[in-house]
């Protein structure tokens, strides 16, 4: 084998290995306890479709979320019912416009049935807390969501962020 060929093969192998590594590190498995009060979820009746929401840091409770929404509600005493009321309203008390804060990171499955796993041996996953505390680390990664059923089986869903614009 010529040196040129040897180097070509070496480059191919190295590139392939790097690509595999990127593929592995570019995805993350998130384990959710569905009984947690800081997540929400919904399944289709036949459990072939699902959606999950993880409340973000600072918005874990309803009280925190309600507080965050206060600027987006009218803060005057009487409800504005017509244009005359609106004209007379104090602008300092009017609801703020613009994108509302995102309380949760929301995901939906995209037409793929979940995988059934009997155990988590060999599965690397992050917990809800780890995910919440380091959400920036995971924002560009492909996400899979894992949870346990009552019968002890685990379901692993391929999910995408629900488009938010």
């Amino acid at each position, binding site marked *: 084998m010529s040196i040129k060929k040897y180097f070509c093969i070496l480059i191919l192998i190295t590139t392939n290995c790097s690509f595999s590594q990127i593929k592995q590190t570019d995805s993350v498995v998130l384990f959710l306890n569905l009984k947690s009060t800081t997540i929400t979820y919904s399944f289709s009746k036949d459990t072939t479709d699902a959606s999950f929401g993880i409340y973000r840091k600072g918005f874990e409770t309803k009280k925190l979320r309600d507080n965050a929404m206060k600027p987006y509600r009218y803060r005057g005493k009487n409800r504005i019912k017509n244009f005359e009321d609106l*004209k007379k309203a104090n*602008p300092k008390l009017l609801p*703020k*416009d613009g994108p509302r804060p995102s309380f949760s990171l*929301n995901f*939906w499955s995209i037409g793929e049935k979940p995988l059934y796993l009997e155990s988590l041996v060999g599965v690397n996953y992050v917990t809800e807390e780890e995910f919440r505390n380091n959400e*920036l680390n995971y924002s560009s990664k492909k996400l899979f969501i894992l949870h346990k059923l009552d019968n002890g089986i685990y379901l692993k869903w391929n999910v995408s962020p*629900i488009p*938010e614009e």
Partner: protein
Amino acid sequence: MDRSLRDNPCLYGVYTKLGQAPTFDRYLRKFDSDFSVADLKLSAGANPNHRHANAVTYEPENFLIETRFNPDNLNRPSLDIARTFIHELIHAEMYRKLLSCSRLPHVNVNNMSNAQWQVYINNLKDDFPSLFDYYMRYLYNVPTNQQVSEPQHELMAQHYRQIVVQVLKQYDGNAHSDELYNALAWIGLMGEGIFNPTTALPSNPSVAWGKLPLSDRLNIKATYDNFINSNPPCQ
């Protein structure tokens, strides 16, 4: 255009191709003239309060409206990114209209005096009655027990989806079915929160999406899923 967007091959490629879509170009030119009330800045970067948003268009500040695209959310087909561009440009167009009513460098009503507020709301009602109507219904006159929704999304869902369809058809030369373009036009306008797969409703649905028949909602979601799964990502 900010360098952050120009340096992103996916975003810049989609933007350049969109320049050949007459409808997109027409909307963009509204910010181009010397007499425009607002400048538009297109950039790429993180939106700390909206980590998962594909893009965010910010309220005008100092006559500047900024649309910031999320570089982490480009593993989608380029047609879907073109959809995000026109969706955000419609937000920018609505803010441009609001700014023309305020006669101020901003539209933050909480920072307006009573006199400035009077000018703003009278102009909005007279100059853009439809925009006024949606702001009245979904921002100012909201019953206390009702969830707050976004007036611009409600208006877009009801009246601007055909603009989105038109731009997307012009973008890719009508290469797909009408069903796909119509499904794409709904993305970002269904509402907020997690999605119930049985009803195809998010926890806080937009009024227009909630009024669609269940079968239509399920078809739109399935069409979108199929599109995402069967087309290569932009980045």
